[in-house]
């Protein structure tokens, strides 16, 4: 889960002694904001969004003319950045920047270890820095991390500013400790600046990108609240789906991401769902959602997610698709849960009779489960085909495409 910058400043930087600019965060230009602006000779105002590259979108502004500060604040606190609405704005003191470094800590799958990444050429996106100017220190033993190791690393890479060697090594260890102890998957400071304060040079973390491990020992959503990953608020259907798994650990059916298409997906298993969704897209089907049902959920969970998936307006086809389950019962999920959802929706007049269906599934009790679903199709006048694993899983979306073209004149997307 990604944190807003002010959350990282308040809850992580303070605790781990990572020096940050003076700041105030607010949703509207309240007294605190006005006082702050009054006191500082110049300020930096930033939109509070989770999306990156704010500067390029004009959502970070330096304001030295105080008469403009409040109107800039109002604009940045409410504007949309790459489609994501700001939740407020952060006002910071403007630093007298001498140098900009890049610093991050993340897990390197190459080394299967935490990696401290540093460059003297910060301030721009990491992708834009010449790779030969980026250096990595791998933490091979997480039981012991000391500043001397970092100084050795900095000397080896030819770090140029001797005066900063000790303070920088100590700061990097603090950042590493923050990463480790708060269970981050990424902590990025770009830029980490050398600022002139009076006659002294001081290191200041002028940004904070923090991604917390969703599986951390204390779930970040408990502390910071649940947060969608799409850079938009959750839709009603997405919120309803989350509730399915709450307080009931038997299997999972509550993952649902809403998209703009017209083909509903009821897909099973992480890997199976991914390859099915992807093949559907490659085949030019406009998918209406992503989902990932698995772990042998009870019929009522399947019932609920099926109703949510089918409630999206404008659907033209449905793909029910999973591999060969090891655990999930096909009679329970498809024969009972899905079939009851269809029976009830039909009775309530909520089932579109023109939908084209393709079902492909195997696993425990699949013979019985697919037969039960077929009987449900017959009694409700549902049009489609049902396959077991004789049809390779990723041929199912392709088969649906053929049927949609043949029966309802569906026009698949042309992909470039």
């Amino acid at each position, binding site marked *: 889960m990604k944190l807003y910058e002010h959350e990282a400043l308040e809850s992580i930087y303070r605790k781990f002694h990572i020096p940050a600019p003076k700041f105030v965060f607010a949703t509207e230009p309240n007294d605190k904001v006005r006082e702050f602006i009054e006191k500082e000779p110049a300020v930096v105002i930033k939109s509070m969004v989770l999306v990156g590259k704010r500067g390029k979108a004009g959502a970070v502004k330096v304001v030295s003319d105080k008469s403009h500060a409040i109107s800039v604040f109002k604009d940045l606190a409410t504007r949309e950045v790459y489609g994501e609405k700001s939740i407020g704005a952060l006002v910071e003191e403007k630093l007298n920047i001498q140098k900009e470094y890049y610093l991050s800590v993340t897990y390197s799958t190459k080394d299967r270890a935490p990696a401290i990444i540093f460059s003297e050429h910060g301030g721009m996106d990491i992708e834009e820095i010449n790779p030969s100017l980026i250096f990595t220190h791998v933490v091979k033993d997480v039981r012991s991390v000391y500043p001397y190791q970092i100084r050795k690393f900095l000397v080896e890479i030819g770090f140029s500013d001797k005066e900063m060697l000790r303070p920088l090594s100590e700061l990097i260890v603090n950042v590493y400790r923050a990463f480790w102890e708060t269970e981050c998957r990424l902590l990025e400071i770009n830029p980490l600046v050398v600022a002139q304060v009076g006659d002294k040079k001081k290191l200041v973390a002028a940004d904070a990108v923090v991604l917390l491990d969703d599986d951390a020992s204390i779930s970040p959503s408990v502390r910071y609240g649940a947060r969608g990953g799409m850079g938009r608020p959750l839709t009603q259907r997405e919120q309803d789906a989350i509730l399915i798994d709450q307080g009931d650990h038997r299997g999972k059916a509550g993952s649902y991401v809403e998209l703009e298409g017209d083909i509903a997906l009821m897909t099973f298993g992480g890997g199976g769902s991914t390859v099915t969704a992807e093949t559907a897209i490659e085949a030019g089907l406009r998918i209406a959602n992503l989902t990932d049902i698995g772990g042998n959920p009870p019929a009522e969970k399947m019932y609920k997610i099926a109703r949510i998936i089918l409630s999206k307006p404008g659907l033209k086809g449905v793909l029910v698709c999973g591999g060969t*389950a090891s655990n999930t019962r096909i009679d329970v999920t498809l024969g009972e849960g899905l079939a009851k959802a269809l029976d009830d929706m039909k009775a309530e007049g909520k089932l579109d009779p023109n939908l084209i269906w393709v079902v492909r599934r195997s696993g425990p009790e699949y013979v019985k489960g697919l037969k039960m679903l077929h009987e449900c199709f017959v009694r409700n006048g549902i*049009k489609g085909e049902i396959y077991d694993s004789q049809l390779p899983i990723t041929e199912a979306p392709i088969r649906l495409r053929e049927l949609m073209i043949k029966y309802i004149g569906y026009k698949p997307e042309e992909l470039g």
Partner: protein
Amino acid sequence: MKGPVYLNEKTGIVVIGATGREASQVIKESEVLYPGIIKAGVTPGKGGTNELSVPVFDTLSDAVKDPKIGSSINTALIYVPPVSVLDAVMECLDGGIKVLYIITEHVPIRDSEIIYQEKVRRGAVIIGGTSLGCFVPSVGRIGAIGGKDPSIAFKAGGLVIISKSGGLTVTTAEMFKRRGWGTYCALAIGGDIISNTTYADVLTELKDDPNVKGVVMLGEPGGSYEEQAAELIQAGVFKKPVAAFISGRFQERMPEGVAFGHAGAIVERGMGKATDKIARLEKAGKKSPVKIAFYYHELVTAIESLGVPRDFEDSTTEYVKPLYSTLN
């Protein structure tokens, strides 16, 4: 010795967290399919009870000291909740177990890192987290892989299937079985960010195993484990045919950071893209027998074109008819 290091004729399993819902189900099924492969279970507080068909102990130490079965235990199957996994792994490593499977999903990354570093220090083999287990048809199975009736998907043959996705491991074995190829070893390595056993680890382990006729590799976006396999192949360490499919190209059409599937399956700051992995494997394939399937089901033609011999006859027909149709 029959079977690879992951699962062979000497394998004797202790299940940690044995009396839980999933673990007790797996023990019950395994006892029917491969009687005797599971030696014991460990659940603190349940030692000495008759809940399971295998003896249950309070601690691993008690299990390995048991005069009857203790010396036959060499492999641990871990089913405890995420925050207890590190503890369970340390208990097993300290108890002298050298092969461990972590079935648990959602292990904190930090704990995974500590586990990995301990594994390296002690020279143990750990598969997972988020593994579904291992299947070696000629020997047996570890974990739930294949369910109650694994014969749907598994028949002895020459393929090694390595997959981050547990479900796709079985689905792939079944797809190949229908087309005439059996499995030598199917290993679900899990999709965690810090993976204790990677594709490259498996390829290195099995490079000289004469039972291996070809490898099917199923990859995902995120991390660099697929690239590491490509490097290993290109360096000539692994020389046998490899067919690969990398899922998740569609993620690249979505906003960065959209989490779908495994914890490790996330593209961050432009790193770990499916298309980059495909390109890297294609590069390895210039001089080595590597084929990339565009669609997942094209893995079969990839293995065929690499000249991997069939283990038995193709049982499919040209055009698959639906089981049921309500059209027309």
